[in-house]
């Protein structure tokens, strides 16, 4: 298929899917079943892409191990763990019909993967502190106002704030639940408009990101 035809095919599929989705959202029509089917395809394609990702990962790390490339030992470890998870998962599925019914599979997931993920999450707290320090330097009037608002919200959230003065909770609540809401909603609305405009441009074949550097 020539590149031009390929591009036209992408435009056509994009247009048809968009119209189906819009009709399904706004109208009571028989196309709802079609739209539901397309959404199911999207989930299937996403999962196939995960499989492709896994295949690419295996090819890339196998090559690194066979060529003894940089940090090849880690690639070997990855391949070993990949094989163990895959085999134990399949073994559990074949024997009981449920992939998680395997002791090794469960142990590795519950006692290696989950704790490692949970360990990483709390470091966010430290980074939020250092980001707050960076943001809360009163370099100009805007930053100073943000610093004041931030202090009230911090004192509202910290138990010591209310112990010092009950008014910190009232002022902090106002900043958190009233003062910032219009600003955030403005961003939400203009962001949504930008998103629709992006979709419209993509539909007309103008957005190159949508066509991976192609398009008009």
């Amino acid at each position, binding site marked *: 298929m020539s590149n031009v035809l390929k591009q036209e095919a992408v435009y056509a599929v994009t247009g048809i899917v968009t119209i189906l989705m819009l009709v399904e959202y*706004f109208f009571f029509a028989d196309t709802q079943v079609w739209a539901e089917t397309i959404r199911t395809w999207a989930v299937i394609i996403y999962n196939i892409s995960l499989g492709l990702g896994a295949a690419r990962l295996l090819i890339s790390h196998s090559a690194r191990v066979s060529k003894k490339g940089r940090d090849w030992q880690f690639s070997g470890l990855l391949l070993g763990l990949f094989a163990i998870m895959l085999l134990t998962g399949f073994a559990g599925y074949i024997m009981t019909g449920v992939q998680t019914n395997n002791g090794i599979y469960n142990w590795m997931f519950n006692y290696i993967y989950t704790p490692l*993920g949970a360990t990483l999450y709390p470091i966010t707290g430290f980074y939020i502190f250092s980001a707050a320090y960076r943001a809360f330097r009163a370099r100009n009037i805007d930053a100073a106002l943000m610093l004041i608002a931030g202090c009230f919200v911090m004192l509202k959230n910290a138990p010591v704030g209310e112990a010092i003065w009950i008014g910190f909770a009232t002022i902090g609540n106002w900043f958190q639940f009233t003062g910032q809401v219009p600003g955030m909603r403005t961003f939400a609305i203009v962001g949504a408009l*930008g998103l629709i405009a992006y979709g419209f441009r993509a539909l007309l074949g103008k*957005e190159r*990101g949508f066509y991976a*550097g192609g398009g008009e």
Partner: protein
Amino acid sequence: MAIIVEGRLMTFILMIIFFVLMYYFMSINKEQQYTIRAMPALQAIPEAVGRAAEMGRPVLWTPGISGALNNSSQGPQILAAISILEYLTEECVKAGVHLQAIVPLPDALPLIEETMRTAYLREGKPEEFNPDQITFISEQSPYLSATLGYMQRYEPASNIFVGGFYYESVVLGEAGNHIGAMQIGGTNNTHQMPFLVATCDYMLLAEELFAAGAAISQNRDMLGSIKGEDFMKVILVAITGVGFILGALNITIIADLLGM
């Protein structure tokens, strides 16, 4: 029998008005040229690449984990980020700078690879593109630790964080600051904007992310759609203002109309 789903009539009418406005400015009066205000974050991209060239270090691009393409509200962010990636890749090819993309989204991976390959081709150096420039890491915690590891090992001169982010925004942004990288951020996720604003030198906020492709290309039709978007904003501000005044007078006609 009702044809339109209850509560969606006005949304449909506003959407049609929006489409008509955009189409009008894109397709009518072709002689008229449009301009868009300069976006500091986009203007800073050549500077970020130049900095990397001078320091002999790579540029890191990562789109965050929230923008899976099958997610209708998050997915377009990664597509908009890919428009920026195309421009960034071209600048990197021109300057001979290594660009590393770390991607946690399997469905966007082929688009990203094709975009970078096309950019190398367009700059006349297709042989320099190496698929290893794109690292795929699935799941949030592994993606985050791999990106942090890359930053510590290779100390990129510039980090470009554009796309859909969750909590990784603050971690990546601060880690980038610790290694002294110049940083450009961009997202439409309102709950992550403050973190990127605090940690990045330049920022694309909300609709700026979606308008980036138009601003980079300076394509008349794309800029026309943004002009239509601005008119739509005026309409929405007017509706909000009138609704506010009437609401204060206990007249609920605008609220009732919007609820149709």
